[in-house]
């Protein structure tokens, strides 16, 4: 007779889906919780750099699109926390871990949004990189995560297009607007390349995650895909990727490019990026300011439940 873990391995080997009630190794469960929580945290922290421009969006149409986008991110956070909860953890506990600095979020959101063009650059580059990272997750071995990603990816592709469209408008606008777009690309290019994580040789979690069907492609492979996809789009925009070594290899159809400064990535991950303190402090403040509201809702629900019981008795 097969052991429960044999059936887990057989499902993984057959490229099947693991569901919440299935037996799974503790390491698999922990890895997924860490990854899904980090992903959920990234969605909600990511609301801040973009939310920063809602009040100042330069047209009402852009304001509406940006509000809808940031709202989508809150929605993604909700699905992802729900997916994590299928693994036996609680959203409230995961938020506490985030607030205590014990769980991470994507380092990209520790960079500041300084001009309106940054909203375009985030959509185009950051959401573009997220799509490259996340499309393979739609085939992740854990069912609830894979299904959440299908929905998230559909919305991300809309986000990416709107970012490109913002920059396209700027690049075809006044000289000051085009300069704003170039400046945004200069600042967001390297952090975007860092979104794929450390180089394969020094990536700590990658190998086991690949074996478990959580991760499908290596960090370096995904980074290469992103560059190959993005450089021709920069050409369409008429702005320059800030990499003097960037060359196109006719034979392979791929770009050769300069790697980002991974020492900077490690510093930002450690908490030493430009906005780490602000992002976390903002989140903690919103959570603490809202504590009395959540308590009131719970107290009210309890009172209502008692009333219902009373009237039923």
């Amino acid at each position, binding site marked *: 007779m097969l052991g429960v873990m044999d059936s887990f391995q057989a499902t993984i080997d057959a490229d099947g889906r693991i569901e919440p009630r299935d037996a799974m190794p503790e390491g698999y469960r922990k890895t997924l919780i860490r990854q899904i929580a980090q992903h959920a945290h990234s969605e909600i922290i990511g609301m801040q750099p973009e939310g920063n421009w809602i009040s100042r969006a330069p047209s*009402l149409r852009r304001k*509406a699109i940006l509000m809808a986008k940031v709202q989508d991110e809150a929605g993604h956070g909700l699905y992802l926390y729900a997916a994590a909860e299928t693994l036996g953890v609680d959203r409230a506990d995961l938020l506490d871990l985030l607030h205590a600095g014990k769980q991470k979020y994507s380092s990209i959101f520790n960079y500041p949004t300084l001009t309106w063009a940054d909203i375009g650059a985030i959509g185009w580059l950051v959401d573009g990189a997220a799509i490259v990272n996340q499309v393979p997750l739609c085939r992740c071995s854990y069912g609830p995560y894979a299904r959440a990603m299908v929905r998230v990816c559909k919305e991300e592709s809309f986000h990416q297009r709107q970012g490109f469209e913002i920059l396209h408008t700027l690049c075809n*606008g006044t000289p000051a607007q085009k300069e704003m777009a170039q400046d945004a690309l200069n600042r967001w290019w390297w952090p975007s390349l860092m979104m794929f994580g450390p180089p394969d040789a020094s990536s700590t979690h990658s190998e086991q995650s690949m074996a478990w069907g959580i991760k499908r492609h290596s960090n370096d492979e995904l980074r290469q895909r992103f560059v190959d996809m993005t450089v021709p789009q920069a050409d369409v925009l008429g702005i320059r990727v800030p990499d003097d070594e960037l060359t196109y290899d006719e034979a392979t159809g791929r770009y050769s490019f300069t790697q980002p400064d991974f020492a900077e990535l490690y510093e930002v991950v450690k908490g030493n990026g430009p906005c780490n303190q602000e992002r976390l402090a903002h989140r903690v403040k919103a959570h603490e300011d809202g504590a009395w509201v959540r308590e009131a*809702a719970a107290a009210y629900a309890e009172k209502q439940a008692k009333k219902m019981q009373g009237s039923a008795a």
Partner: protein
Amino acid sequence: MSDPRANDLSTYSLRLGDDALIAAQRTAEWIAAAPQLEEDVALGNIGLDQLGQARSLLQYAGTVEGAGRSEDDLAYFRDEREFLNLQLCELPNGDFAQTIAKLLYFATYQHLLYEELRGGTDETLAGVAGKAVKEVAYHVDHATQWVLRLGDGTDESHRRMQAGLDAMWPYTAELFASDELVQRLDVAVDPSTLEEEWLRRVNQVIDESTCERPTSAYQHSGGRDGRHTEHFGYLLAELQHVARSHPGASW
């Protein structure tokens, strides 16, 4: 503009559009700062509805005016004294209870107004109102649920809900102020006709929430004449600054 009726209709649309625009600007401030994630989504939704209403109404105001002004010209290139929104809409959010009090008062007013307008003879206003009335019904429901929860939740939430209802109350008489324009313009709703039903609905919610009905005697006014609170200049500076830094640019 030579046609006095067109002038009135444009001004009337501008009033309602400015209410919705400024309300949206304030509502959106909650996104990424709400007490829980569900509320970021809900307030985002409400803000988007308000902004959508604002865009339709400002567009219409510009069209009727006939001077070629777009929704963005009207939103970004008018000065403080030219905005005709209610002061209630521009007030800072305060804590969550104050925001909810503001939403209860404003959405209940908008709901009554749009219900009247959707049956009116101006096709555009009726169309905007017909769509908006469904959206605003949800805003009223959302605000009502929170007034009940906060009013009858904990001691602290009860105290805050009462404070929010009281703080916003002196800005509510302005919602129903009638003037020559609304009396003259055939397609306008005279807001004074909405007051009684508004009071009935709002009082019902307040009573059920275990809070007291506010009793402030002093009432602010001036929004419809472009006289605003000190807060408004800052709101507008933030809303307009990028567009004004690049005059003539497209976005």
